[in-house]
């Protein structure tokens, strides 16, 4: 089975039911997307497929249908941060950080579709991403800052 992740094409030999998350983590060693719940309750596994945020624990690899996958590693790297990642660093958002890959991918997707979200838009888009450490006040601030930065760019 072939798939494209962060612009690179890969060939994997797995059953079509295997969720994308586990293809990424255990077959391709792309560990930015995290396993948290396995039932789309936490959002830690969020990646983009053709630019749209999806829960990779719920997408069987057989249903990917040629969609191009972007993970947190493909959004930006430490030396070339995406505006959302930059805002996360500036607001010192993370505590344990385990949910933040998913939070950032969700936020980046939100801003792609809605460049100037209201507070209510942010809450609605981000409430599927669970943060056990409770960094929500900082996530809100970082999303707003990233929106401004992207609009100014």
């Amino acid at each position, binding site marked *: 089975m072939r798939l494209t992740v962060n612009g690179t094409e890969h060939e994997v030999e797995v059953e079509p039911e295997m969720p994308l998350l586990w293809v990424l983590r255990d077959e391709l060693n792309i560990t930015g997307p995290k396993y948290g*719940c396995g039932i789309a309750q936490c959002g830690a596994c969020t990646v983009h497929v053709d630019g749209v945020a999806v829960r990779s624990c719920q997408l069987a690899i057989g249903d990917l249908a040629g969609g191009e996958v972007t993970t947190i590693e493909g959004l930006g790297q430490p030396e070339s941060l995406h505006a959302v990642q930059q805002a996360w660093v500036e607001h010192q958002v*993370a505590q344990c950080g385990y949910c933040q890959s998913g939070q950032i991918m969700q936020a980046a997707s939100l801003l792609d579709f809605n460049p100037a979200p209201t507070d209510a838009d942010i809450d609605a888009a981000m409430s599927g991403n669970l943060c056990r450490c*409770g*960094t929500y006040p900082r996530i809100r601030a970082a999303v707003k800052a990233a929106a401004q930065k992207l609009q100014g760019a």
Partner: protein
Amino acid sequence: MSRVGKIARRTFLIGSAAIAGGVAFGVYAARQPFDNPNLDDLPEGAASFNPWVIVDSEKVTLIAPHADKGQGIFSAQAALIAEELDIELDQVEVSFGMPDKAYYNRALTEAMAGFPLHDTSPTAERVRGFVGGVVKLAMPMMTTGGSTGVPDSYDKLRQAGATARETLKLAASRQSGVPVAELRTEAGAVILPDGTALPYTALAGLAATLPPVTDVPLRDPKEWRLVGKPMNRLDMVAKSTGTLTYGIDHRAEGMLHAAIKVNPRQGGALKGYDASAAQAMPGVKKIVEITGGVAVVADNTWRAFQAAEAIAFDWGEAPYPAEQAEHWAHLSGIFDDDHLNAEARVEGDVEAAEGEEVRGEYRSPYLAHAPLEPLNATVLVTDDRVDIWAGHQIQMFAEQVVSEITGVDQENVHLHNMFIGGSFGHRLEFDFIRQAAEIANQMRGTPVQLTYSREEDFAHDFPRHITMGRGVAKVKGGRVTALDVQIAGQSVMRSQMGRMGLSLPGPDTQLHEGAWDAPYFNLPNLRVRSYRTEALAPVSSWRAVGAGPNVFIYETLLDEAIHAAGADPLEERIRLMGHDVSVKVLEAVGELASWNGPSAGPGRGRGVAYGFSFGVPVATIVEVAATDAGIRIEKAWVVADVGKVIDPVNLENLAQGGTVFGLGHAINCEITYADGMAEQTNYHAHEGMRMYQCPEIRFKALENGAKIRGFGEPPVPPSAPALGNAIFAATGQRIREMPFNKFIDFL
């Protein structure tokens, strides 16, 4: 092992038991530092002046041994060393190092001395020093817990930086011929009077031959460059780019993935199983028995999960009551002398005190830790060495557990501590380490990564202990005149330590923590009694431990009494509070919130609560609106006194996060047992707070306390009663049991 060691090891010195027993030890021995573990295999030309600093010709390495589960101690430790070492954080490598008793946690013993932490009298300090010495000799525990990372590190790591700096200056003096007094240090180099910079790395070889300088005076905080200033946490970029390697992300050549199914009735037996279907599933390499269950080893975590689900099991009964109602019924029946844990505090005479009575019964449920990174550990066993890649808070005990399973000497068992994706106390437990070692020991030579499914994580989360409180308050003349608080609970410390093979003599202080030591010194009549059972589900330390339920009970009862007295909830607390540092905290939270009483307009209410835990007074005000769709939590204001702030940004993050944590669980979380099994299997049933429910949270830190304190846990306890008190102010409905959503809807 010495006699004191054996005694302490068997009984674990807590409270006054050891002192009453008259254990004697040498002051000299207690003051001796442990050997520096870095010297064991230090390469030629490298220098290590103490357990926390290594310099070689290429780089400066700082050892930050406390486990980081999100609280930021990794960066705080590095900053404390770098402050005195005169090096910038982008010039160093920081490592958790390898577990060693040189990194034992001295601050943790403070709470064992039997005095409330606001008591800094000479007697209390002397006993703390004594207990610290005994524990160091008997059982030097390398532990991260009890909000002690910062207080344990504060002096010790600055001293480590200072002694390393002075030794490097001595080396520079020898090399240049310039007297030490004419040298200064900056940005990782010794600077000669003519401006020549000698990098520490260039001085390593010579410094390694010198005896380290000791007893260097620490700098005045006014001179600090890093500490006390807003920091950029060292893990922040990695955590924002998916490039941080948590334990679950560890990868090794030839590594296999394991999943387990263990009797969901905690501690129950494995009576039988049929794994024939699982055996034939894709990717399955081996199926092995472990204590109380079975593990599937496969080439992919998901395949291991799938195969584990395909095993049919015959499980034994739970060694505790099978149904939740029986747990509550049991607790309600232990408020008697036979179950008395401690009469922890008696002031005046609560029974003789006059006044109108206010009575309440309060309940705090079992709660799962459920950190977002599921429990996991990777273990490689060979015949003469074991490596473990996992995040753990009691690292050397984890090594000991694995040594016992594998038969490999503990000195050849190496725990590589990893960044932890949340703990809230769960990474103090050993089951996941034990299970990973049992699996890997049956597959010697192959690294095996055990990952709990979320369902397995919930089923085997030794939850926060269940607690019931009963209180009687008296009010007269517009004032609260008496509080009589009784708390009954499953003993968390006996349960947790029992799993480590340790016994706890005397009372479990966590059953009255946060109530007995609440410094309302102007309350003339006060009694706090706790009652203990061990007959219920196995439980563990959950962020803030006893103070969580106890502050909820105490501060809700107090709020009811203040309401009955017709007094202002904040002003009456300030009047009752005889502890100056706490008075300032309460006054400051009132200012921050522009407090003007509990009413905040039609359908709106404000509640205040105070909590004292881990030496930190915290006051929280919550404002709610009662809407047609339910209670909306709009704002929270939090003030705390930590003695000294290391990083104001991270402190604010912890205050906000701890408040969210306390509020979220109070709203909608509980673990209940049916047929001996936890009914909640994943986050849909034990959700905590989500962003749309999160209030705006403002925080202010004060620095009036006599000692520096840690802040991982203290923000949690007052948030739940502040919310309950706000709901009462808004609706007139008094909720005495968590989770609150059993009684009122939330937005």
